[in-house]
Structures are given as structure tokens and as C-alpha cells.
């Protein structure tokens, strides 16, 4: 038996299979890259080449006539990366301790508040640093905090973050916690509310999401309300505003009380 050459135009299997495959590919390409895109009567497609480029997925810059829309309020200027402020030097913590003397009136001598202001002891350093910067720039409004941070340098704020992160966290009794309400444990999927722990530590910790356990209920309640009304808006992706405005008043009460009692 003579050996049959496959890759030859005289072999009908070769010509037919390659021909049919190529014909299907070309026909599909014509429809997908030219005919279908041209059916869109958009200003973007001025001709066949535009249609092909668009269907191929080429990225185009937006036309320069369109202005970038900016929010009508200040947003945070802090860019956070996962390695930021991971470890503070002893000198930094020491300087932070000195600077923190001006904070003790509200936040307590060792970062534990008696005044329904946040407990700062053991808070994530990134969180403290970001909030200080936001108070300074005005991205987060507070009549009390604004004058106190006005003269802090960037290094000062990093030192303060290092010092408070270094202090031991508040310890409350686990028995006082009670049952965790559904809104905290599992969120409300149908309203697009993730469980609090998805960012705040139970399940995962997202950069700049605060340590909430043991914080005063009054403070947590006020912040959720402020997020819901938009009075507080230094969450650049609107994560907390979107969540808080979809929570009911009862859920805000329950979540605030629950975290205040959690160890």
C-alpha cells in the first residue's frame, strides 16, 4: 500500500477539512467583526475599520471633550497598600505616646475611652492613620478633631497610629455578648449587605476597615447613621454608605449594641 500524503491539495480530506473550517471561521468573523457591529448606529463606528477594532476589544480612550465627574465633597487622599504601617519602631511608638497626651481627654490615658468616643488601644494602625489624615484634609468632618489634627505632620500621624496599635486592646467579658444578630453574622444578601465580618475581621480583614469589637455603642450608632445620611463620606468606594443606607433603624441599633458587647 502506498503511503497517502495528507498535507496535499490533492487529498480531498485535507482540502475539504481545511476549506470548511476556514470558511466557517471567515463567515463567523465577517458577521462578528463587521456586520453585527455596524448594526449599532453609534457615533463610535464610522466605518468598517472602527467596527473591527471595537469587536476585537481594543481599548479606546474616552474623548477629551468629556469631563471627568468629580464628587461635590472631599474624599480621602490616603492610598493604602497591604504592607503599609505593618511595623512601627520603638522610637516611633515613643513619639506617638508623647503626641497622644493631647488625646487622653476623650480617648483615655491608655486609649480606652470613658466618653463614648472610640477606643483606640489596639486599633489597626492603617485605620488610625487614615482617619487622622481624613480629619486633617476635611474628608471626615468633626468640630472636635479638626483643630487637634491641624498641626500634625504626616510623621506625627504615623507615630500616633503606631502607638495606639501597640497598646493592648479593650477586654470585655464574652458572656455579655449574647447572640450575634443576623445582620452582623450574615448581612442581608438580597439587599447587597455583606456580613460585617467580611471586612471587619470575623471572616476577613480589609485594609482600613476598623476593629469594631468593644467600641461604644453610641459611637457606632452615630457613625452608621452618618454613613446612611451621607454626612460621613470618607469611604471612597461608598462601601459603608451603601451598606448603612440599606440597613433598617432596628438593624443599626442591633449591630451597634452587638459590637459594643463583643470581646
Amino acid at each position, binding site marked *: 500500500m502506498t503511503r497517502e500524503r495528507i498535507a496535499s491539495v490533492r487529498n480531498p480530506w485535507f482540502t475539504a477539512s481545511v476549506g470548511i473550517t476556514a470558511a466557517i*471561521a471567515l463567515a463567523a468573523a465577517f458577521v462578528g467583526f463587521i456586520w453585527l457591529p455596524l448594526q449599532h448606529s453609534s457615533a463610535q463606528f464610522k466605518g468598517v475599520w472602527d467596527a473591527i477594532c471595537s469587536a476585537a476589544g481594543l481599548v479606546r480612550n474616552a474623548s477629551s471633550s468629556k469631563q471627568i465627574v468629580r464628587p461635590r465633597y472631599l474624599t480621602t487622599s490616603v492610598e493604602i497598600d497591604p504592607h503599609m504601617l505593618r511595623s512601627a519602631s520603638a522610637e516611633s511608638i515613643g513619639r506617638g505616646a508623647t503626641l497622644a497626651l493631647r488625646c487622653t481627654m476623650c480617648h483615655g490615658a491608655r486609649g480606652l475611652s470613658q466618653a463614648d468616643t472610640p477606643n483606640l488601644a489596639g486599633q489597626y494602625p492603617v485605620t488610625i492613620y487614615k482617619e487622622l489624615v481624613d480629619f486633617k484634609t476635611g474628608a471626615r468632618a468633626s468640630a472636635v478633631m479638626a483643630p487637634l489634627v491641624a498641626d500634625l505632620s504626616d510623621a506625627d500621624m504615623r507615630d500616633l497610629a503606631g502607638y495606639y496599635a501597640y497598646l493592648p486592646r479593650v477586654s470585655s467579658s464574652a458572656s455579655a455578648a449574647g447572640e450575634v444578630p443576623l445582620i452582623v453574622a450574615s448581612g442581608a444578601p438580597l439587599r447587597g449587605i455583606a*456580613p460585617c465580618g467580611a471586612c471587619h475581621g470575623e471572616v476577613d480583614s480589609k485594609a482600613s476597615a476598623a476593629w469594631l469589637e468593644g467600641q461604644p455603642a453610641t459611637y457606632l450608632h452615630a457613625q452608621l447613621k452618618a454613613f446612611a445620611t451621607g454626612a460621613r463620606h470618607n469611604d471612597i468606594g461608598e462601601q459603608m454608605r451603601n451598606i448603612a443606607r440599606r440597613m433598617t433603624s432596628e438593624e443599626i441599633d442591633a449591630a451597634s449594641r452587638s459590637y459594643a458587647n463583643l470581646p
Partner: protein
Amino acid sequence: MWNSRRLVLAHLWFAFAGFGAALLLGEWQMFIRSPLHAWISNPEWYYRSVTAHGTTMAYVFPTLVAMGFGYFVTEEALKRPMVGLRWAWLGFALVVIGTFTAIVPVALGLASVLYTFYPPLIGNPFYYLGIVLVVVGSWVWVALMSINMHRWKRDNPGAPVPFPMFATVAGSYLWGWTAVGAALELLFQIIPVALGWRSTIDAGLARIFFSWTLHAIVYFWLMPTYIAYYTIVPRAIGGRLFSDPMGRIAFILFLVVAMPIGIHHAFEDPQVGSGFKYLHSVFTAIVALPTLLTVFTICASVEIAGRLRGGKGVLGWLAALPWRNPVMLGAALSFVMLGFGGAGGLINMSYQLNATVHNTQWITGHFHLIFGGAIVIMYFVIAYDVWPHLTGRALDSFRLMRVQLWTWFLGMIVLTFPWHWVGILGMPRRMAFYDYTDPAITAQAIWVTMSVVGGAILVLSGGLFLLVLVRGQTAPRTEPATYRFSVAVRPPRALPAALNGFGLWLGLMVALTLVNYGFPIAHSLATPGTAVPAVKVGERW
């Protein structure tokens, strides 16, 4: 068999053991996210289980069945000892080591990324290295299938390669090429990040690479099933294969068009242009062709059996079929599930219809019906058919086999039909918690509960399957008759070279891959600023 009996048994036992464990996980997942169980509060447990279930069921179980059955076919179809037995054991060892390397970090909660990886989620590097070992082990099999076929062709110049071997080699080549996409994704994108060498990943490009693997992997799973349709079913029911060349053409079509169509899994992905989505959609439609050819050929072959058994008239041959034969029963139930699953697949491949079911429970229902149903039920049939030849012991619990196959079929229907339905109602997939007290989804609770019942039936059926095999392993020794594959109505004496080898078809497969994937991959690589920070799974403050 000559020398690969223990090898094949090792592959199949490890595959079925993994299947049994993963089956229990699947039912647990179904149960805890149903209204029958209170919320477990920590979704991590759920995703950990889904990752283990998917990794075992998608990578380990079908790969080992394809490998084991491939080695079996090599000896029984070529009628001579297999070349490279030591290499085959090495491949098996790699798969086993890879399985444990991958599953340990998953069990520890360090790699709950689901089996499709989902970058920018990044888990423990050992998870990915384990998967790579499984794939490398299976590539040893791909090489051995090719070598054994070529040695046989060299020793039998001009003779048609026996059909079972031809089909098996087609399946192995398909896997060899389709696994390249996931391998590229793992080696060049995910593993460097998992090892900490890089902190960002181009998730869009990674998804394109994975789609390269993601669709054809289903056809790789399908291959043993289709080989069984052609080479076991007609023989087992006393019929003849309707056409040998038509069977070859079906497998060739799978080889050429099953792979460059994966972007239909990425219809909602912004990084791929609409033109390429259309191109992939067209070729996805063409992949229905070999399945329709197969349905025609197998129905014709079964009709031959029915008529040989005395069946008369337009439908009389159906009644004459040996319905008590587990192979007949399994193939028929598989066809029913293939019909429903295939119809669902045609919906998924349509750009517009996909938009309504994308990322819903419909998709989960679809691939469980096709893979868990139509494909896996034929894995059972294959095991029942080859077991006596592997163990040298009788396997005669026919009643138990029939009960097992029926319960698998019923369980799969009860599991997946409600699953499809809640998908149409909009229930998203990949979620660990559904609040059934919310009036918006209260009405879906009953359907999810039904799926839990379906899953329970499947667990029962899986248990019966293992019981049948264990009973076969402990039965008294017998000398089984020589193993035979189906014979065609007209066994080919000579074939065109194109139907007796793969050069042309591999060329077309690679060319189509370049046409359908070349530009999207090159474009992603060339576009700056597409990388995003990796999200490490299992790392805590």
C-alpha cells in the same frame, strides 16, 4: 489483559474513593445552604468544602477514570502488552501525590478559592502545585497513548487503528492541548503570586487562559463516556456498531472544535471583544455536531440489536432491547440526561440567553446534569463492564446495579431540575448563605429542599456503586471470557490516512486555537495597567 491489570485497578479505585468522599461534601453543601439548616455563620467552611468537592470531582476523578480506561483500552484493543508500564505507574504516582498536595491546604482552609481558581483570589501555593502535578501525571498518559498507537501502526502498516484506541488517543490529545491553558495560567500568573514573587495579577488574562481549558475539559470528561457508547454498548446488548468511520469523524470533530470555544464562559467579561465572543459562539454551536452524530450512530446501533433480538416495526425494536442489562439501562438513562443537559448547553452558548442565566444556579444545575449525570453514569457502566476482567472475579449483582443506576438517574433529575428552575428565578451561584425568610426568595425554599433530597438519593446511589465494586472484589475467582469491544456492521479493512491518524486534525486544532485565542491573549498581554492586587485567601491579621 497482559500487564496493566493492577495499574487500571489502582486508577479506578483511587478515582472512585475520591468520588465517594467528594459526593458527601457535595450533599453537605446542598444541605447547609438549604432552608433545612440554620446558617453556619462562617462562609469559609462552605467554600472550603466547595473547593475540595470541585477539585476532586473535576480534576482527580475524571482524569483517573480516563487514564485507567485508556490503559485498559490500549491492551484490550491493540491486543498486546502496553509499552511504558513503569511510566504509567509514575504518572499515577504523580496524580496521587498531586491530589494530596492540593487537598491538604484546602482542608486547612488555606486555599478556599474554588476549583476554577478565581484570581485575583490567591491561595496556598501547594494547592496549585498539587494541581500541576495531577496535570503532569495525566500528560504522561497522553504521551503513552500516543506512543502505543504509533508503535502499533509501525508494526501494522496500513491497517486501521482499532476504533477504541483511535477514540482514546483523540481524547488524550484533546486533554494534552486543553490543559495547556490552565497550565499557563498556573505557572506564569497564579503560582508566582502565590509564592510571593509578585503581588498583582492580570485577572482578565487569567480568565481567558482558564476558558481555554474550561470548556474542552468537559469534553475530556465526556470521552470515556462516548468511547463506552461506541465500543461497549452495542457489544453488551448483542448489536453491532452502525458505522466505524462515522465514529471516527465524531471524535475528530471533538478534537478540532471542542477547544477553541471556551470564551463562551466569559460572555460577561469586559476584557474580551464582542467579535471573539461571537466567533466562539459559532464554534460552540458546531460542537453540537459530533454529539448529534453520536446520538444517531448509537441509536442506529441499538436498533440493530433490537432487530437482531426479534424486534419488529417502527418502535417494536425498543421493546425487544435487553432493558435488564445494566449497560443498556445506563446508556439509555445517560442519553436522557444528555438530551436535557445538551438543550441547556445550547441556551448557555447563546449570548442573549446566557445573559439571563449567567452566574445563576442554572449553570450549576447544567454542569451537574451533564457531567454528574450523563457522563458519570457511564463511568459506572464502564466499571461494571470491565471489573470482572480486572479482578478475575464475577460481578453479578445485576439487580443492585440496576437499582444503583436508576437511583443515580432519579437523584440527578431531582437535584438538577429544581436547580435550573431557581436559576431562572434569579438565584445566584457561589453563595454560601440564602436568607429564605426574605419574602423575595421564600418561594424558592421548596425547590432548594427538593435538591437536597435529590442529593441524598445520589449519596445512596454512590454508596450502592461502591458496594457493588467491593462485592465484585470479594467474589470467588472465575476466569472471565476474553474481553471484546463492539464490532462494526462493516469492519473497516482500509481507511483513508486522514481517518487513521491525527496529524491533520491536530494541525487544525492548533490553527483554530491561534485564530480564536491568539488576539485576545496578545491584546491582554500588551495592554498596560490590567493587573490588580492579589487577594490572599486564608491569611489573617
